[in-house]
């Protein structure tokens, strides 16, 4: 009964989405206030019914209702309760339901938080979001219904994919989806502006905080995914340039370009059509990501179920949404007048360069990701593009970006005298460069040119971002206290600085990890020890243990430094009872300056085990950096200037 209730709620939500798509837009075009106001209640209702549907599915999982096909395929009575809940989005059908729920959540938020918007703008925005909802709810109902029953009911479920039984995976997909669909709001604002033909800076001001928040979710989502891959795949790596990862990274890059270009358009009324195009592009890439992940056109370590019927549906939907909005763009953007003029050397130019670099990076990743597909479609031998390609094209694009990041925030709008800027910053530049050379030599006694440049770039970003705040404090007149003047600095300014510092911290982590990691993959006898990076790893014993839904062998590895016992690591090799595939559960001693990482391989003989040991310096900085970036985004989105809009 409950699954049927869920399905019914899903259908009601579809009807409400149709109402939300049609009536407000019609009202806005014919100036009918009653029709326009339907949008708000339809958006709220749609969210409510999707929530009911989602809870029904969750209930089926908790109650182990194996008459529901999706539950049978992805759960098991022995599965712990928290994984039974996260199993709701453990596979395709439930992921989609979560996706539409997030989408409706954003629509609801817009309906509630945008009371100060002109009625016709809100109507168009909600209508666009309704159209997107229709597409995805129909997709769920027609090709991927999570409530489908099976008869006769199974007595036991097939269990959740063991790879997904990890705390990181409990919250990674919701965050990622919130980010993906979050860009639908900026997209809806842009498209609504295109429909009305009015592209004033008010539009940008409304759209900006939404884009920021979506970007925050996407940042956290990607970081969690990377953290999960690091913990769970057992290879000691944190990013694999896998198609699924790239699918989320491309909208992130364009989203980053978007939040910067929105700033220019709000402040200077320039780049209007560019900003609109980026808004469309960011969401299009989110849809493309969905297509790549859900259609199975590319193989990936994350391999999800693939089905051509689903692929065709998403591709058609993609064509309608992206093709439609880009046609609208082609038709309307010609009329937009560009705003204020600016010199060749100015903040505008720097932000334009930032945008160009980010979009070009996105395109190189797009080409790399789709390369096997292009070759296959052209009938050429299949070949896939690996990390060497991405590192080779990506790093040279990021270096100038980080350099510009130091200059941009301190440059003035319209015109900058380079000389003055250099005078202000040359000390920081030299210190960063000197530390870039000295730090790796001092810590590791070794360096390369790329390492030095990377560290210098990261420090440059951190110093200049801090200086951007310090400069404002230094400008205060003597009567105000330091605390007061710190409070007076707009929150968005702090947001920018924190996010830029975050990127610097992130780059430091990446450079140190990729330059100074060490690893050994060897067979070890019980009682023997292995030396790595000044640490000694002693394989003490190996024991069989029994988990709630798996059997495992667990190795006990004593880690010591200078004969001082540091910690005991316990990597496991698990066999889950139902799906029977062996899983590597790495054991990590995480620290601010280094991670020690041990993964258990195959037994070589009774007394001898294959073991992979990794030493990963500064790797946690990668995630600390992303947290700072996300925090910066939150600070920016909650600036006073946007809060005033909310009543």
């Amino acid at each position, binding site marked *: 009964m409950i699954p049927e209730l869920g399905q019914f709620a899903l259908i009601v939500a579809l009807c409400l989405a149709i109402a939300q798509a049609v009536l407000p837009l019609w009202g806005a075009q014919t100036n009918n206030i009653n029709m326009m106001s339907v949008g708000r209640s339809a958006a709220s209702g749609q969210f409510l019914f999707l929530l009911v549907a989602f809870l029904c599915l969750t209930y089926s999982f908790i109650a182990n209702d194996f008459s529901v096909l999706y539950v049978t395929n992805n759960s098991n009575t022995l599965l712990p309760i928290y994984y039974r809940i996260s199993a709701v989005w453990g596979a395709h059908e439930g992921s989609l339901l979560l996706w539409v729920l997030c989408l409706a959540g954003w629509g609801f938020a817009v309906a509630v938080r945008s009371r100060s918007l002109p009625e016709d703008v809100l109507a168009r925005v909600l209508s666009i979001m309704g159209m997107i909802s229709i597409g995805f709810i129909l997709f769920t109902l027609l090709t991927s219904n999570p409530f489908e029953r099976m008869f006769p009911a199974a007595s036991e479920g097939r269990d959740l994919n063991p790879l997904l039984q990890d705390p990181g995976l409990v919250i990674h997909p919701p965050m990622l989806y919130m980010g993906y669909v979050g860009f639908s709001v900026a997209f809806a604002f842009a498209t609504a502006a295109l429909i009305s033909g009015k592209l004033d800076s008010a539009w940008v001001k409304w759209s900006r905080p939404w884009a920021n928040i979506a970007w925050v979710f996407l940042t956290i989502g990607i970081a969690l995914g990377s953290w999960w891959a690091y913990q769970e795949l057992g290879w000691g790596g944190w990013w694999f340039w896998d198609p699924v990862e790239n699918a989320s990274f491309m909208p992130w890059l364009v989203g980053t370009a978007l939040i910067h270009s929105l700033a220019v358009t709000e402040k200077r009324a320039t780049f209007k059509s560019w900003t609109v195009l980026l808004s469309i592009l960011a969401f299009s890439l989110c849809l493309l990501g969905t297509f790549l992940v859900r259609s199975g056109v590319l*193989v990936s370590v994350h391999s999800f179920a693939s089905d051509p019927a689903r692929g065709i549906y998403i591709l058609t939907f993609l064509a309608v949404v992206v093709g439609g909005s880009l046609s609208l763009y082609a038709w309307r953007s010609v009329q937009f007048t560009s705003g204020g003029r600016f010199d060749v050397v100015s903040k505008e130019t720097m932000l334009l360069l930032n945008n160009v670099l980010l979009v070009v990076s996105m395109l190189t990743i797009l080409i790399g990701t789709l390369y096997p597909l292009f070759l296959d479609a052209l009938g050429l031998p299949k070949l896939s593009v690996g990390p060497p390609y991405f590192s080779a094209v990506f790093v040279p694009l990021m270096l100038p970006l980080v350099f510009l990041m130091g200059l941009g925030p301190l440059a003035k709008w319209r015109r900058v005298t380079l000389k003055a800027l250099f005078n202000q910053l040359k000390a920081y530049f030299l210190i960063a460069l000197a530390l870039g050379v000295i730090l790796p030599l001092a810590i590791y006694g070794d360096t390369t040119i790329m390492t030095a440049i990377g560290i210098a770039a990261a420090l440059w970003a951190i110093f200049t971002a801090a200086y951007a705040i310090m400069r404002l404090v230094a400008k205060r007149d003597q009567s105000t206290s330091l605390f007061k003047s710190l409070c007076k600095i707009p929150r968005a300014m702090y947001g920018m600085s924190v996010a830029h510092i975050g990127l610097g911290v992130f780059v430091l982590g990446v450079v140190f990890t990729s330059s100074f990691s060490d690893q050994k993959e060897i067979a070890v006898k019980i009682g023997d020890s292995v030396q790595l990076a000044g640490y000694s790893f002693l394989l003490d014993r190996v024991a069989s243990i029994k988990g709630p839904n798996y059997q495992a062998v667990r190795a006990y590895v004593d880690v010591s430094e200078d004969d001082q016992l540091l910690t005991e690591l316990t990597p496991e090799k698990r066999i889950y009872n139902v799906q029977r595939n062996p899983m590597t559960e790495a054991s990590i001693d995480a620290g601010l300056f280094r991670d020690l990482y041990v993964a258990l391989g195959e037994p070589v003989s009774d007394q001898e085990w294959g073991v992979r040991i990794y030493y990963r310096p500064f790797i946690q900085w990668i995630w600390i950096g992303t947290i700072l970036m996300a925090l910066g985004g939150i600070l920016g989105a909650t600036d006073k200037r946007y809060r005033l809009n909310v009543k």
Partner: protein
Amino acid sequence: MIRALLPIAFFTILAGFLYVGLYKDPSLVPSPLIGKPIPSFELSVLKDADSSVTEKDFKGQIALINVWATWCVACKQEHAALVHLAEQKNIPIYGLNYKDDRDLAKQWLIDYGDPYVLSAYDPSGRVAIDFGVYGAPETFLIDAEGVIRHKLVGIMTADVWQQQFVPKIEHIQQDL
């Protein structure tokens, strides 16, 4: 005006590639076992625990080896297609019953029909490992010498049969 049309032009080309890509199978990467003879093994026959079956029993003519289990929902989905193949297409299908319970498996063949010439019973999954099985269902195409010519990961359907297996079989027959 031309500039405004660029994004949509770019997208159209991309969508074209994506569309073509949908009909290509990315999982068709060459399996290391293709072109190699099937691994040797000795297992008991599913329906008769006292008699045994080895890789030699699978050789002699072009045949399919299907890895299946009663706990495997996807196997249930492809089962009808296999029964149909066995009846209509005149190709022997051997089963490799994978990590299963003998009584349940026998009952399953009674309930849903038995497309297999015989099924080897591999409760520990040891032999399946030698076959490089990721999970059930998988279907191997072998020639008369017992050399693996094609491997399907996932569900057998009439379409898959027509598109992947028929050309391979014709190819093998031409070689003879």
